[in-house]
Each structure stands twice: as C-alpha cells, then as structure tokens.
C-alpha cells in the first residue's frame, strides 16, 4: 500500500499529546524523563483534568519539567516538593497535585519531607524517577547508586562500607499507613511503558477517590551519567538496577503485597 494511502487523519493511531508543550525537551537523547513526562500528560489528557492539575518540579535534571508540561506548575527547593504539594492539596483538595522528583531530591535531601508526606497520607501523587545518579550536577553518587557503581564522587565504585549502601525508600514508605498505592515501573520498552501508563492512571484515580498517597517509582536510565549509549544503558539497567529495584506493585488498595 502506498504511504499516502496510510498516512491519513482517519488512520491516526498515535500522536504526541498536545499537553506536552512545543518546547524541545532538554533531556539527553534516550533519557527516560521524556517518556515519563509524556505518559503523565497522556493520562491528564485522557482524564480531561488539565485545568485541575498542578505539578511540582524538583531540583535536578527535571527542574525544567514545567517548561514541557502544559499545566500549572511550581518549582520547589531541592527535596521540598512533597511539602509544597501538601500546602497546595490541603487548601485545594479537589485539585490533582503531583510531585515529580529525582533520586537526590526524594531520597537524599528530601527524605524528611518524603517520609512525612507519606506518613500523613497526603492525597497527592509522588513520581520518583530513580536513575541512581545526580545527572544535572555532573554525575555524582545518589542514595540509590548501586554498590560498585562508578560516579564522579565514587570514582572507584561505590563502597558500601564507607559510603553506605543504596537503599530502597519505596519499600520503606510503603510500610507507612498513609500510603495507599505504591508501585515500581519502568519505561525502557513498549510493554513496561504501557504498564507504567496504567499505573499513572491508577495513581490519579486514587487521588480522585481521596484514598491516600500514591507513589510511583520509575527505575530509569541516565546514559550520560553512566557513560553509555541509550540502548546500552537500558540493557545495563535491566541487568543491574532491576534485580535490586524489582518491578511491580508493592502496595495496592492500602495493603502491602508480601513477597
């Protein structure tokens, strides 16, 4: 069949959501941030909640997330996004409020704010992008950097004995009463992307039904920080990050899934 027979408006099955702005993403080629931004905006578009959604951007590679998402946003100090989200959601309980944070933001400097927002069960959604490195500032070690993994502040590999091991904050906050839906996803292949999108939809439904805090960790790549090509980084991620940060639901409808 001729291309011009196929490429017709009535045959359109997928296009970039208009809720992403026209700005070219500032992320490196192959970076999962772009995919995750797109999925969140697709869900907001499908639910028709653009006018009622407020996003909080972190400090990190995604500090400019507000340039790419066509929704009202605030930019938070490093680690403080859950506190901003709390302030907003408490006073605007019918809005959809989410934070979008990296591993340094959420699990290093923001640990206190993360734990307390989760403990209080704020009716918000936390998107946690874990790529085991501090991309924006030049590739330093993160609290989720794997043992032995090289970074600019662990140039000989992370030494868990002197620097502490990586830790799974997602499993920790899942044990707090206030968290209702906790899951770990990835966006490196089509199957996982479709699952991740369903998870994002579930999270926003949890907010709609005022059930508690929803928390999605995306294990993602940082090919620049890890010094690989995008495809190499996705393979490396599957082989190294996934065994330590396993995919799947951790808490559903307020109940921990044991195993």
């Amino acid at each position: 069949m001729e291309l011009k027979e196929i490429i017709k408006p009535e045959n359109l099955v997928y296009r970039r959501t208009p809720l992403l702005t026209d700005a070219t993403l500032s992320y490196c080629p192959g970076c999962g941030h772009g995919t995750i931004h797109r999925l969140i905006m697709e869900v907001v578009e499908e639910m028709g909640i653009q006018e009622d959604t407020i996003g909080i951007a972190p400090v990190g590679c995604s500090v400019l997330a507000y340039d790419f998402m066509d929704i009202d946003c605030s930019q938070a100090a490093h680690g403080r996004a859950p506190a901003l989200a709390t302030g907003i959601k408490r006073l605007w309980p019918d809005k959809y409020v989410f934070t979008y944070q990296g591993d340094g933001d959420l699990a290093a400097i923001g640990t206190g704010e993360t734990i307390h927002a989760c403990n209080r069960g704020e009716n918000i959604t936390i998107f946690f992008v874990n790529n085991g490195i501090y991309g924006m500032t030049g590739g330093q070690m993160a609290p989720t950097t794997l043992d032995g993994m090289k970074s600019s502040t662990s140039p000989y590999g992370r030494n868990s004995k002197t620097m502490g091991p990586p830790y799974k904050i997602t499993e920790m906050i899942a044990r707090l009463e206030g968290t209702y839906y906790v899951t770990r996803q990835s966006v490196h292949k089509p199957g996982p992307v479709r699952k991740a999108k369903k998870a994002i939809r579930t999270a926003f439904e949890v907010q709609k039904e005022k059930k508690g805090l929803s928390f999605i960790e995306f294990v993602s790549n940082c090919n620049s920080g890890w010094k690989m090509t995008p495809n190499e980084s996705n393979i490396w991620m599957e082989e190294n990050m996934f065994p330590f940060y396993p995919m799947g639901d951790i808490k559903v409808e307020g109940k921990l899934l044991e195993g």
Partner: protein
Amino acid sequence: MAKAKGAIEVDVERCKGCEVCMVNCPTDVIEMAGEVNGKGYHYAYMKYPEYCTGCTNCAVVCPDGVITVYRVKQNKSIEV
C-alpha cells in the same frame, strides 16, 4: 482476518537519534538516517516501510515523542 498496514512520521528536527525506537520495532522497520538534522542528530526513519504494522511500539517508547503512527485495516472479511 484483518491485516494491519502501518506507517510512521518522524518529527525529524525533534528527533535526537537515541535509537531506542529502532531496537523496539518488532519488524525492524526503523534505521537511523545517514544525514543529520539541524541539531546534528541522525534521525530515525522507515528504512523498510513495507513491514510496518502500525503497532505504535516505537512511538510509545520514544523519549521525545517524535513519532506519529498511522494504521489502516486491510482486507477485512465481513461475516454474513
């Protein structure tokens, strides 16, 4: 039985040549062009368009959302 026939359009200037679409295409339609776009990236294109089924895998995995997908149903038999 319905057979789908698909095609993609790539926003050439927005593509960063990351090649993630290429490895996720189930029928190996996509390659990176020899030319580069305005930013210097080798952009993705359909090298073997005849094998595209319009499955949207490429579009769905693209970090920059540069791919638009079309799909037509061919030779659909109608039950009487």
